[in-house]
C-alpha cells in the first residue's frame, strides 16, 4: 500500500516498505483465517470508531516502523469480527495548496473507505494519502516563500461526499517550518461523520523561533496523516453510597462551623489553664512564703538558711 505513493531509489527502503505493506495487508498472520478481507475492513472500522486511537497512516517510505496501535486494533478487530457486515465504498477527496497569496492548485489526493454504520452513521476509515511531488515551478514558488517567511496554505473540502461542502477548510503554516531532511508535514484531520471540521497542519515536530531559512536537502514529502474523531465525555458519576463518606471527608476540610469545643474555645481555655496553673502554684507557694514571713521576726541567721532552702526548692521546681 505504501509503494504506490512514492518511488524511492533506495532498495533497502523498498524492502522495508515491502515488509510494512505485507504486515498491514495481512493483519491476521497469527491465525490462519479465511476471512481476511472482512477482517481488514473491521480493522479500519475499529480505528475510525474508537476515539482514543488515531488511525495513523504514514505514506512515506521514510516513515517510522509500524506503529504499535495497529497491533492493538488488530486484536480488537478479531473480537468484533462478525458483528455487523457494513456496506462500504471508496471515497476520494483532493488536497489543494497555495503559495502565499496564489490560487489553490491540486497537491494530492486522500482516499478512504466510507463506512455506513448499522444506524446510518457514516464514518471514514483507512485514510490514505498520495502526495504529488513539487514541480519545478512549485519548487521555485516554495523557495520564494522560504525567503519571504510567508505562508504555505492547504485546503480540503469540508464534506468528503459532496466537495467542497459548505466551505473549504483552510490551514496554513509558515513555509520555513516544513523543510527538514525532506519536506516534513503532519496532518490531523478532525472528522465528524463525513464532514471535515478542521485540519491541523504543520511540521511534524517543533518549529523553532526565529525561523531558520534553509532549503530542504531532498524535495519530497514525508506526510503523516491522522484522522481524529471527537472524544466522548465520561458520564458524571453519581455515587449514592459514597455520598455519606464523601460528605464526611469533605466536611473536615471545608466546614469550619462544625468544630469541636476545644477548637472553638482554645484561645480562652489556654489562658484560663495558665491562670489556674499560676493560681495553683501561687497557692502552693503561699504557705511557704507565709512561713518565711513569720520567720522574718526571728534572728537573721536561721532566716537566711530557710530562705536559701526555699529558693532552692523554687529553683528545683
Amino acid at each position, binding site marked *: 500500500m505504501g509503494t504506490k505513493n512514492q518511488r524511492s531509489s533506495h532498495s533497502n527502503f523498498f524492502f522495508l516498505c515491502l515488509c510494512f505493506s505485507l504486515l498491514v495487508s495481512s493483519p491476521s498472520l497469527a491465525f490462519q483465517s479465511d476471512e481476511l478481507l472482512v477482517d481488514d475492513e473491521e480493522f479500519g472500522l475499529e480505528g475510525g470508531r474508537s476515539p482514543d486511537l488515531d488511525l495513523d497512516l504514514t505514506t512515506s517510505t521514510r516513515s517510522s516502523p509500524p506503529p504499535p496501535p495497529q497491533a492493538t486494533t488488530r486484536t480488537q478487530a478479531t473480537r468484533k469480527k462478525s458483528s455487523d457486515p457494513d456496506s462500504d465504498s471508496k471515497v476520494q477527496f483532493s488536497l489543494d495548496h497555495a503559495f502565499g*497569496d496564489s490560487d489553490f492548485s491540486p497537491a494530492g489526493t486522500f482516499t478512504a473507505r466510507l463506512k455506513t454504520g448499522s444506524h446510518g452513521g457514516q464514518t471514514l476509515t483507512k485514510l490514505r494519502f498520495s502526495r504529488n511531488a513539487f514541480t519545478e515551478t512549485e519548487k521555485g514558488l516554495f523557495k520564494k516563500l522560504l525567503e519571504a*517567511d510567508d*505562508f504555505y*496554505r492547504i485546503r480540503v473540502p*469540508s464534506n468528503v461526499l459532496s466537495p467542497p*461542502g*459548505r*466551505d*473549504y*477548510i*483552510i*490551514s*496554513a*503554516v509558515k513555509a520555513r517550518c516544513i523543510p527538514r531532511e525532506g519536506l516534513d508535514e503532519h496532518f*490531523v484531520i*478532525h472528522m*465528524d*461523520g463525513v*464532514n*471535515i*471540521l*478542521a485540519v*491541523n*497542519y*504543520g*511540521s*511534524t*515536530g*517543533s*518549529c*523553532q*523561533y526565529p*525561523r531558520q531559512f534553509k532549503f530542504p536537502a531532498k524535495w519530497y514529502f514525508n506526510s503523516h496523516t491522522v484522522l481524529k474523531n*471527537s*472524544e*466522548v*465525555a*465520561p458520564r*458524571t*458519576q*453519581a*455515587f449514592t453510597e*459514597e*455520598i455519606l463518606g*464523601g*460528605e464526611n471527608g*469533605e466536611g473536615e*476540610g*471545608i*466546614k*469550619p*462551623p462544625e468544630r469541636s469545643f476545644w477548637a472553638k474555645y482554645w*484561645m480562652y481555655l*489556654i*489562658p484560663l489553664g*495558665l*491562670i489556674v496553673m*499560676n493560681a495553683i502554684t501561687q497557692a502552693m507557694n503561699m504557705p511557704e512564703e507565709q512561713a518565711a514571713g513569720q520567720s522574718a521576726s526571728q534572728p537573721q541567721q536561721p532566716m537566711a538558711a530557710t530562705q*536559701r532552702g526555699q*529558693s532552692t526548692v523554687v529553683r528545683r521546681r
Partner: protein
Amino acid sequence: MAMAIRVFLLLLFLSYSNLAFSLYEDQVGLMDWHQQYIGKVKHAVFHTQKAGRKRVVVSTEENVVASLDLRRGEIFWRHVLGTNDAIDEIDIALGKYVITLSSEGSSLRAWNLPDGQMVWESFLPGSNPSKSLLSVPTNLKVDKDSLILIYSNGCLHAVSSIDGEILWRKDLATEGIEVQQLIHPLGSDVIYAVGFVGLSQFDVYQFNAKNGELLKYNSAVFPTGFSREISLVSTDTLVALDASRSILVSISFRDGDIGFHQTHVSDLVQDSSVMAVILPFKLTGMFALKTNSIMVFIKVTDEGKLEVLDKIDHVKTVSDALPFSEGQQAFALVQQGGSKIHLTVKLGHDWSSDLLKESIEMDSQRGLAHKVFINNYIRTDRSHGFRALIVMEDHSLLLIQQGEIVWNREDGLASVLDVTTSELPVEKDGVSVAKVEHNLFEWLKGHMLKLKGTLMLASPDDVAAIQRIRLKSSEKSKMTRDHNGFRKLLIVLTKAGKVFALHTGDGRVVWSLLLHSLRKSEACEYPTGLYVYQWQVPHHHAMDENPSVLVVGRCGLSPNSPGVLSIVDTYTGKELNSLGPVHSIVQVIPLPFTDSTEQRLHLLIDADWHAHLYPRTPEAIGIFQHEFANIYCYSVKADKGIIKGHVLGKNCFLEVADEYCFETKDLWSIVFPESEKIIATVTRKLNEVVHTQAKVIADQEVMYKYISKNLLFVATVTPKAIGAIGFVTPEESWLVVYLIDTVTGRILYRMTHHGSQGPVHAVFSENWVVYHYFNLRAHRYELSVIEIYDQSRADNKDVWKLILGNHNLTSPISSYSRPEVITKSQSYFFTHSVKAIAVTSTAKGITSQQLLIGTIGDQVLALDKRFLDPRRSINPTQAEREEGIIPLTDSLPIIPQSYVTHGLRVEGLRGIVTIPAKLESTTLVFTYGVDLFFTRLAPSRTYDSLTEDFSYALLLITIVALIVAIFVTWVLSERKELQDKWR
C-alpha cells in the same frame, strides 16, 4: 507580677490570632457597597394616600416595577421581572393594587401597593401578537367587583381586580381588527374598542362591560388609508393621520356613527415639508403634533374642526392630562434651553393661563428631558400645587417641586454595558503639620475606642461609634492612590451613552459624562455603546499624563453601521477626543504595545475585515510595522458556524489612501458541520498574570501548564438544542466543546457531552476552562473543567539538566510547533443555574483562584478552584491529600458562608468583573445588573497584610508594656540577686 503580665499579653495576642474567617455582622459595608437602581422609567403612576405616605409606582425598561418614596426617592419595594418579561403597562386598581401587564400582554399581575406582595397573577391566552392595552376604568362595577380591561394578543379580556379571574373574553383577531384604544365613557356600562382593519377601514365595537356582549358594531372606510398613530381627544373623538401623513383626520364615533373630518396639515402649519407625527400624549380636547422641531398643540372642537392653539419651540416632552378638583385637568410641558429646564403646567381647557411656570437649573450631563409625569397636591394655603417626575436622556429620574430638584436617581447605572478601571492620582507631598496634629488626637481617640471594643469594655454607644468610624473612615474614599491598590475608579459605560466614574471605596459617582458621540442626532439615529478600553495608562514614561479610556460605540443596531470612538480623561471626566462616525466596528483588539506616551495600540476590525490601527500617529505605525508579522486575529461567524483565522496584509485599497488601514487574509478556517451551532466562545482575559508554568503535583512530579494567550474555547450544540431546556430529548441533543489555537487554527481538544445542552457559561483562565451546561439525562446542571498541560516540556524534570542548561524552558514557543498537550477533564453536578461566571485575578497570580458564580438568585458564590480539579479521585493517596486534592464527590458543595454578596442580591445580575489589587492576596470584585455590588475578596485570606481594624495603638501599648515589664523584672531580679549575695 511578671506572670500576670505574661498572661495579659498572651490574652491580647490570642485575641488577634483569631483572624476573620468569613465576614462578621459588623463588617458588612466596610469594604463592600451595594447600590439599588431601577432603570429608565417607562410609566409612572402616582399614588397619594391620605395617610401621608406619598409614593409613586414606576415601571422601567429594565423590567422593574417599583414603589418609590416621593420625599426622598428611596425604593419602598421593587420587583425585577425576567429579561423576557417586559412590562407593557401599569396602573392602580381598587386603590390598593398595582396592576402590571407584561410579556406582550400575556401575563397580568396585581401587587399589593403598601408592601409589594403579589396578590394574584393571571395568564391571558391568545395567539395573535398585537398591541397590548390595559385599562382600569374607575367606576365600572360588576357585583361589587371592579373590572380591568385588557386587550392583548388579539383578545379583549375583562378581569376581576379582586382575584384576577377572567370574567369574559372576546376574540377580536378573527375580525381582523387591530385595536388601538379601549374607551370607557364615564358612568356607562359600555366599552368601546376602536381600531383599524387593514389599511383604511376604521371599526368601532361596543361591548357590554358586564358580560362582554357585543352591543354594536360599526365600520367605515377612509379611502386614502391611515398611518397607525392615533390620539384620543375625548371619549368619542379620535385624531389620526392619513397614510401620506399630510392630512389630519378627526374621527367621531358618537353612538357608533362614524364621521370623518379632514384637515390638511399644511393648513395648520406652514412648514409642512417634514413628516408630521402625532405624539402619544393623552390630553383632553387637544392633541400634540410634531413637525420638524416645532410642537403644535391643536384643539378639536365639537364639530371635529381643528384649531391651532400654539406652536412651541424646544418642547421636549408633555405629560398626560391629570384630572384634579371638579373635572379640571392639567398637563405639564417641558421646554429646554441652555442649561435650564422650563416646566409649565397648563389647565386642560384654557390654553392662555399657566397654573405653574418654573425654571430649574439642570446639569448639562443629564441631556434632554425624555418623559414627564405630574402629580398634584394641596399646598398649605389650600391652593393646588404640582410636582413633576422627569426622566432625562441619561435615564436619571428627578422629582421637581417648587422650582427645585427635590431628589434625583442615577438610574442609568441600572444598565451597565461595560466596565474598566483606572488608577487614582498619586498623593502629593506636603501634608500640613496642623492636620497631622488634629488627626493625632482623633487617631488616638479612635484607637482607644477600638481598644475598648477589643477588651469588651465598650458600652453600646461606643460600639456604635466604632462602627461609625469604621464605615466613615475617610481613608477608603480618598481621591488618591493607596498603598494596597484598593482605591480605584471604576469607569462604567451605560446604555444611555453616559460614562460614570465610581469610586471603589464607597461607590459614589466621581464624575459622569454624557458622551456627545453616543447621543441621538441626525447623523446617528440609534447610537449604542459597546465597550470601554483602557487607552492610556501612565506608567514610567509619561507620569504627568492623566489616564484615559477609549469608548467604542456604533450608530445603529447592525454590525455594519458606522462606529464612533471617543477618548475620555479619567481624572477630569472630560472628552479629550472624539471620532466618528467612522468605519464599522465588529471587533476591537487591544495590542500589547504602547507608544511613548503610553497610549495603547488598538486594532479595530470593520465589517469588511479591514483592520484599522489606532492611535493614528506615525509613531504607532512604526511600532506596529515592527510586530506586523506576528499579529493574527480570528472571527467567529456563529450564524454560519465558521471560525476563521486571519493575518494582516497590505494597506487597504480604498478611494482615499489610508496608511492606518490594513487588509486581512484568511489563514485558516474551521467549518462546523450542520449538526452543530456555536453557542459560546470564551478566551482568556488579556491582562491575566500567571505566576508559574510549573505545577508541582504529588510525589514531587512536575506538570507544565499549557499557557497560551491564543486559546479559544468554543461550545456547540445541535440545532434542536438551541431552545430552552425541556424542548429536546437527550438523544437528539449533544454539546461539543473545543479548544482551538487561534494562530494556527489547530483543534487542540474536542469532546462531546451526549445528552447535554446549553446555555453554556464558561470562564477561561491560565490553562483551564470551566463551563456550565445542562445535562438532560441526569436532569441537572453540570460544571465541567478542562485542564491542558504541555508535554513538550515534561522532560525537564532532571535537576542536572536544569543546572547544566540542557533544557528547553527558555526557548521561545512558536505556535507552529506541533503541540504536545494532554488534557484532563472532569464533570460535577451543580445545583444552581448560572447567569455569569468569572474568576478572581490577583496582581501576581500567586494566590489560589476562586470561581465567582452569579447564581439565578442574583447572588455571587465563591467556589474554590480546588473543587474543580480534574485530578480529584474518590480515594486520593496520602501524597495527593497533602497536595490539597479533595476527594471526589459527584456534586459541588454550596457553602452558605461563601456567598460574597452575603445577604444582598444584585438584582438582574449580568456580569462579574474582577480587578487585581496591588496587594497580592486581594482581588476587587464588581458585579453589575440592575443593582451594583462591589467587594474585596481574599481567596486565600489576607496572608500578606494585617486586617484594616488592626489596632496599632494596642500594639504600641503592648510593646511599651513589655519593655516596662522587662525593666521591672530586671530590677526585681537584680535586687533579689543582691539580696541573695548578701546572705
